[in-house]
């Protein structure tokens, strides 16, 4: 299959086994979605087929059961992404409050289009559907964090901060 190295720290493996115990005997497959989040956070923010195979092995299910689930849900990236994935909400309440302008601003500022990653591997712009932040629009999610009520100035400051931190942002980060 794939030759990519798959990373799973000891803590991550321990966390996976803790999750598997939440379910009744024989229902270990229930752990798949939470474990995919851990796998993604451990492996540069995306799931290669090798990573998914490893997940199947950890849980004790077949690889295809992992592939079909990973490809169904929008939060699992099946291709490499930048360190900071800027997920801009584009659904109506955000649209009414400037989501389209926010996307254009980011595209211009980072010189990439939606779906693309900057050459330095720092940023990916992604548009997503309603994130439940309609009262604080426009907004974007980056890792676990919601960045809300964005103006051009606040967006500039956010990009500067993320660049300075220069670290990968994951949904599983503790904030």
């Amino acid at each position, binding site marked *: 299959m794939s030759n990519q190295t798959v990373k799973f720290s000891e803590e991550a493996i321990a966390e996976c086994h803790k999750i598997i115990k939440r379910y*009744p005997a024989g229902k270990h497959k229930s752990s798949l979605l939470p474990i995919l*989040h851990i796998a993604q956070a451990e492996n540069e923010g995306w799931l290669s087929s090798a990573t998914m195979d490893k997940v199947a092995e950890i849980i004790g299910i077949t690889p295809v059961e992992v592939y079909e689930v990973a490809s169904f849900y929008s939060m699992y990236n099946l291709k490499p992404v930048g360190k900071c994935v800027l997920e801009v909400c584009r659904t109506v309440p955000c649209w009414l409050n400037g989501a389209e302008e926010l996307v254009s601003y980011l595209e211009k500022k980072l010189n990439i289009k939606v779906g693309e990653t900057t050459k330095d591997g720092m940023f990916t712009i992604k548009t997503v*559907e309603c994130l439940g932040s309609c*009262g604080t629009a426009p907004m974007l999610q980056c890792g*676990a964090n919601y960045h809300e009520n964005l103006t051009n100035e606040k967006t500039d400051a956010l990009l500067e901060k993320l660049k300075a931190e220069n670290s990968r942002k994951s949904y599983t980060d503790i904030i």
Partner: protein
Amino acid sequence: MGKKLLLEHINVPGIQSLEVYRKMGGYASVEKAIKTMSPDEIVEEVKKSGLRGRGGAGFPTGMKWSFLAKPVGVPRYLVCNADESEPGTFKDRYLMEKIPHALIEGMITSSFALGANTSYIYIRGEYFYVSRILERAIEEAYAAGWLGKNILGSGYDLDLYVQVGGGAYICGEETALLESLEGKRGNPRIKPPFPAVKGLYDCPTVVNNVETIAAVVPIVNHGGDEYAKIGIGKSTGTKLISAGGNINKPGVYEIELGVSVEEFIFSDEYCGGIPDGRKLKACVPGGSSVPILPADLLLKTSTGENRLMSYESLSEGGFATGSMLGSGGFIVYDERACIVRSTWNYSRFYHHESCGQCSPCREGTSWMEKILHRLEYGHGRSEDIDLLWDIQRKIEGNTICPLGDAAAWPVAAAIRHFRHEFEYHAKYPDKVKDTKHTPPPMPARVAVG
């Protein structure tokens, strides 16, 4: 009982912690339920309260609970639906983030009533940070003996876990949620059997929304009859409304059901009116799936009555002139909004979120998005309007789950009430190519219904 039942203590510093939550009277419902009530008595109080599912469908909660099958030796489950993904809705996030123990308390009391010894809170993956807040609250509850073995020395055991999703609107549909919780794609199941008979792991299961479960706390504390005195008619109690769009004060408001829509939009206690003195154009009052209403039909029913924030009043007149309370995702549009662009946005959403199981939804949502896109970008034809109407009509009622209806209704309502804007798009492609074009004026209402 005041009219704030869920958010009364929301601004108390430290209310996220068990200590402060307890000081404010938290966990009294668990104590009362476990020490003084039988499970059936709790179900009876919930029935008397008239509480209706707060996720959107509005089905009576007590009745849903009473359908739960109780075969001997088979575990039963309570699953909390915290998948909140209906565009315009953010009340559950607010509640869980600000006052997590309100949900944990409701989960314990409700699980006891249903005889569940293991319960799950299924939360959308994007709310990962909220899942951490809930997990911390659950840890505190375990440490204090509110969860785990032999709660309050009663012999009742309960384990509670938080499950994060992977990003899929469809998992808010209860059977898709159960599939997802089992580690599968979120494809809704064919009903019957209903989850009350065959739910999680094929066992009897109740799936309730976050706000519904939190509302069980005041119902048990004060009694179902007292709860039923709040609100109006069959819309009892309070409801969390997530208000957004073009308003001065977006946010989550707990209202007593029965407040007038006009007061909700214009009073400073709630939305605070429309910014910069612009005019109210339209509103989607209950999350993206419910029909859009133009300002006149939003504020008054077709018979000239004041429209109220209640299940009955918002749906008065059926879809011809009414809408639905739904999830309480209240999206306000000012006069600048282009209804065609809005409808295209919704159709894109439903196309993106269709699980693909049923052909009418899988294909129909894609066609509607495509047609609305060409109308909005100045390549539309006048026949497109009737074509859209035809497609939405063929999706509605012809799918396994309600996503098909949810995709059809916004398109139908937009054409029903704003047909002139669709015609304008077909007729003046050059004018609408600018995505910021001014929408044409609303024609005088000729006939309603």
